[in-house]
């Protein structure tokens, strides 16, 4: 069992952290960019175990939208919405419209002032869209591209940036891995997926991805350094690992990592 999930999960966590810590750079493409879409994901409630059946409850996962989230074009590629970057706030339905004179990745900052399907958010999160996804959705830079910002769009962005995949490759890989029938559904907000089996698969992956991204955001907020994070996740078996110098973690170390308790 351990060998099945050794490398991918820690690598994803590290990649998520890397993205939030702005280890990637903004793509520079010619042309203006106009986008519209929805910030969506899953609303998960854990099971409640109690002495009485009446007080107990099963877990539930429903498709959700994020209202009050900040969406911006991440012009400097630091994974955050900074002053001067075109930004807007999502509506009660999670919708947004935004334009920029420069094409750049999209970031949705879901703070504790936002809501998930009307429910308060206790720990912030960050979802992203790679600029390649915007280009793929665009018929013309002068017209609006419909682009949704979800946990899965973030996974695609990470695959493009950290695994060197193209947008098409990343989308196809994710679609196949989670068992969605068509890639046209994969990056829809779950609220807009009409195929029930696809929606269930997307929701399942969304819950997992949201958890990872929330954890990554917590590390960032805690002030962990890149070296510490990579030491924790990528090189736990290297006794001499220097947390102030992430480069000492060799690629070969990734093959032998154990899943850290924090990710569980």
């Amino acid at each position: 069992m351990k060998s099945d999930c050794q490398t991918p999960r820690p690598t994803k966590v590290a990649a998520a952290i890397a993205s939030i810590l702005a280890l990637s750079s903004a793509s520079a493409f010619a042309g203006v960019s106009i986008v519209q879409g929805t910030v969506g994901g899953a609303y998960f409630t854990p099971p409640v175990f109690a002495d009485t059946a009446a007080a107990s409850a099963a877990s539930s996962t429903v498709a959700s939208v994020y209202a009050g989230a900040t969406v911006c074009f991440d012009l400097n590629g630091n994974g955050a919405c900074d002053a001067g970057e075109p930004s807007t706030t999502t509506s009660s339905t999670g919708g947004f419209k935004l334009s920029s004179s420069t094409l750049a990745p999209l970031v949705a900052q879901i703070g504790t002032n936002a809501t998930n399907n009307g429910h308060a958010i206790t720990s912030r999160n960050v979802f992203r869209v790679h600029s390649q996804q915007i280009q793929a959705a665009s018929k013309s830079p002068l017209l609006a591209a419909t682009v949704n910002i979800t946990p899965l769009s973030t996974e695609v962005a990470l695959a493009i940036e950290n695994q060197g995949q193209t947008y098409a490759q990343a989308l196809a890989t994710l679609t196949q891995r989670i068992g969605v029938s068509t890639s046209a559904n994969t990056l829809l907000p779950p609220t807009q997926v009409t195929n029930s089996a696809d929606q269930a698969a997307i929701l399942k992956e969304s819950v997992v991805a949201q958890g990872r991204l929330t954890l990554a955001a917590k590390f960032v907020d805690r002030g962990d350094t890149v070296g510490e994070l990579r030491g924790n996740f990528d090189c736990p078996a290297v006794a001499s690992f220097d947390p102030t110098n992430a480069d000492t973690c060799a690629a070969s170390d990734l093959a032998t990592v154990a899943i850290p308790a924090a990710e569980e």
Partner: protein
Amino acid sequence: MNVLVKSVIATALIGASAAANAQNTFDFSYTFADGQEVTGDFTGTTTNGGQSVTNIGNIQVSLNGIAFAPVMSNGVTLGNATLQANTWNTSAASFDDTTPVVVYANGALNNFVFSDVDAAVNTNPDYEFAYVNDSTNGVQEAVAANFLQTDSFSPGSTQLALDTPGSASNWQLTEVAAVPAPATLALLGVGLGIVGVRGRRRRAI
């Protein structure tokens, strides 16, 4: 035939030609679902009472009352004062600069963009108003954006209005006044001059 009569007939023909080729002025407006509004005007020719207009020129556009016009920033002029029109080619699913632009009174027929660039080759306009109804390619959008200006409708970014054209009444195209083209005006003047000269000669004789 009497020379004077010939001149009168020639003048009438020139006048008729001038009327047929008249450049009319057309006002237009589009109201977006969120209340934002694009207004403007252009010159063009019509042969069907303004149901369709061609030879579009002298385009002026404003979004929420702010004109699509150049702006000075740090000593540099941004934006082009002259707006041009391009057609959205539904076969190619792109803007081109070869298909003549036609603006229709029926908004559902429109496929054009007004911007400060040739949208067929330049994807960096400073301002644009695109109105596209392309069911073939799934592109049905009205978009107005001014990347040089801000307003209260788009806090945090530059001006943007965007929706899927719905009610036909959102789009208005109105013929305002006939403006004879300079060339035909000159020809008409020449014709009238000939009539005047002939009349003076007859009186002198």
